[in-house]
């Protein structure tokens, strides 16, 4: 018995060491370009382009960030994006979870039909023009509501939720609940959801990040500047720097042009940081909150 235990711990130990090494390598390989990007947003662009900067900022400068945050509208962009993300994610979350839950019930009549209905849309859709016209006819153009609702549902996530519910909530549990007089709704709210904290957290992250980074549909559907999202404003800042750098055909002051060209480069990196930092900060908090509550096995023995 002891020998078996020793042998076990040897192969386990080897496994652990390999695990540590591999994960460390992954950490470094992933971390390095990230640090590079952060450093590049603080460095003199010439140093970046000539290869001089490779890890730490060279000739530290805040000009890129200054350009971004001096642009008054950016705070409005942040607020709008937070608004659309929070409310929109809530809409999406419930839609996707509920639909996925419904599909996970084998007893549901027409289960196949309802699965196919959503799958078809993954492949065939009417295209930008017709969707725009439909939204226009619904009088939803340039409204906050359409920003909450657009992209609300995704067949991909619905199926992931369905799979998750099917594997982690035993059929027996739901049968027992039915017999006990537990309605589907109560089961969903009181049992299924609490058991699926990990899934909910992942869904929130996926859905929220998608909405946060959205550019195309907000750009098309919004007209009034006060509703513009962060990504639109950031793109404006980016393009303006690039464009004014190329505008020299009537002889601009060269200091102005050169500075513009360089800042345009720097801004590319700074924009990434400005746009993704909020999300990166929120994630660890979400993680803490959900991990505290992961429960396993409500019914055993």
């Amino acid at each position: 018995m002891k020998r078996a235990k020793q042998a076990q711990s040897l192969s386990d130990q080897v496994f652990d060491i390999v695990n540590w090494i591999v994960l460390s390598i992954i950490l470094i390989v992933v971390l390095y370009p990230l640090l590079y990007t952060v450093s590049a947003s603080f460095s003199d662009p010439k140093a970046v382009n000539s290869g001089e900067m490779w890890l730490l900022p060279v000739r530290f400068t805040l000009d890129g960030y200054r350009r971004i945050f001096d642009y008054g509208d950016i705070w409005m962009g942040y607020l709008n994006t937070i608004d659309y993300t929070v409310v929109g994610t809530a809409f999406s979350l419930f839609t996707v979870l509920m639909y996925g839950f419904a599909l996970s019930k084998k007893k549901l009549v027409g289960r196949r039909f309802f699965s196919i209905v959503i799958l078809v849309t993954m492949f065939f859709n009417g295209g930008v023009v017709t969707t725009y016209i439909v939204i226009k006819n619904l009088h939803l153009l340039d409204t906050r509501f359409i920003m909450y609702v657009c992209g609300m549902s995704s067949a991909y996530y619905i199926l992931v939720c369905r799979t998750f519910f099917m594997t982690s909530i035993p059929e027996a549990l739901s049968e027992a609940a039915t017999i006990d007089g537990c309605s589907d709704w109560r089961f969903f709210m009181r049992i299924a959801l609490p058991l699926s904290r990990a899934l909910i957290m992942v869904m929130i992250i996926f859905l929220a990040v998608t909405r946060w980074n959205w550019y195309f549909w907000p750009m098309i559907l919004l007209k009034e500047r006060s509703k513009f999202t962060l990504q639109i404003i950031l793109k404006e800042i980016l393009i303006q720097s690039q464009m004014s750098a190329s505008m020299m055909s009537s002889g601009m002051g060269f200091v102005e042009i050169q500075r513009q060209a360089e800042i345009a480069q720097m801004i590319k990196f700074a924009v990434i940081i400005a746009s993704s930092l909020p999300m990166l900060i929120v994630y660890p908090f979400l993680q803490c909150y959900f991990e505290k509550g992961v429960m396993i096995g409500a019914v055993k023995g």
Partner: protein
Amino acid sequence: MYISQVASQSELCYIVTGSIHFCGKRAFVLTSTGIRGAGRKKLLRRILTDWQLYLFMLPGLAYYICLEYGPIYGLQIAFKNYSPAKGIWGSKWIGLAQFERFFRSAYFGATIVNTLRLSIISLFVGFSLPVLFALMLNEMRCKPFRDLVKTVSYAPHFISVVVIVGVLRLFVTPSTGIINHIIAALGGERIAFFQESRWFAPMYVISGIWQELGWNSMIYIAALSSVDPTLHEAAIIDGANKVQRIWHVNLPVLRPTIVVLLILNCGQLLNVGYEKVLLMQTDTNLTASEIISTYVYKAGLINAEFSFSAAVNLFNSIVNCVLLITVNTITSKLDDTSLW
């Protein structure tokens, strides 16, 4: 206490075969007696009993009907010579002419091969690695390190593709890039990665992995957290080591999720986006880097052709659909997992 499975076809007669404690109350488990009722009435009754489930699906369905099926009449753009002024109904019907233009192109075969090469390699690699990563992370006992790796690993997802390609270009420049510095230090010859066609797919896939590894593994990490620890305890008692435990306990838990995602991704095989590839294209690597979406994009630049890109997209969708159905049929036969 053993819990019997109640048959999923609704029957009207039950007998008690056991009882369990549930929600602090005693519940009885029923088994069917095998008595069946009349067909149609039964169906209606089942629907009515499950009315809440249908309500669950209502918001999703409302969305789909309004915003996805509503505009679907726009598919016919692929068969017309669309002009925004005439509108969809007023544009001239030309049947398969747009498709023919695509099929007859000298690049038709090449673009499909290049697209498939990228997506199949991405599929294999982009599937196995996140699963492995999730499994390994799960086994890491040291929580701070595990959290660090997790957080760092999903950060690249946020970086826009423009910056990633920009940084990649800087890294692999023959004269000043860090990768080539390392190669030279190890005694090798500097490689012009962006110039040679054979490096295009590897660079595309590797940068994709870097960007999405952590992100894609999130789902698997979540699934792994719901593994019943008693199963692991049982396995340890049986003398299994870590590797065996992973194989026999963790992987089966992940399997349904892996299969579903695999099927869904097979249904996206021809949909390689143009943005990243366009940024990585150079004149010299075009033989490997010209894919369907970049081809259509450039054609559109010459002449804002809605119909042409609609036709090619429809072609892509049909092929993807067929692939999805095929793969789904295979998995449902082999594994009993199906998307519908």
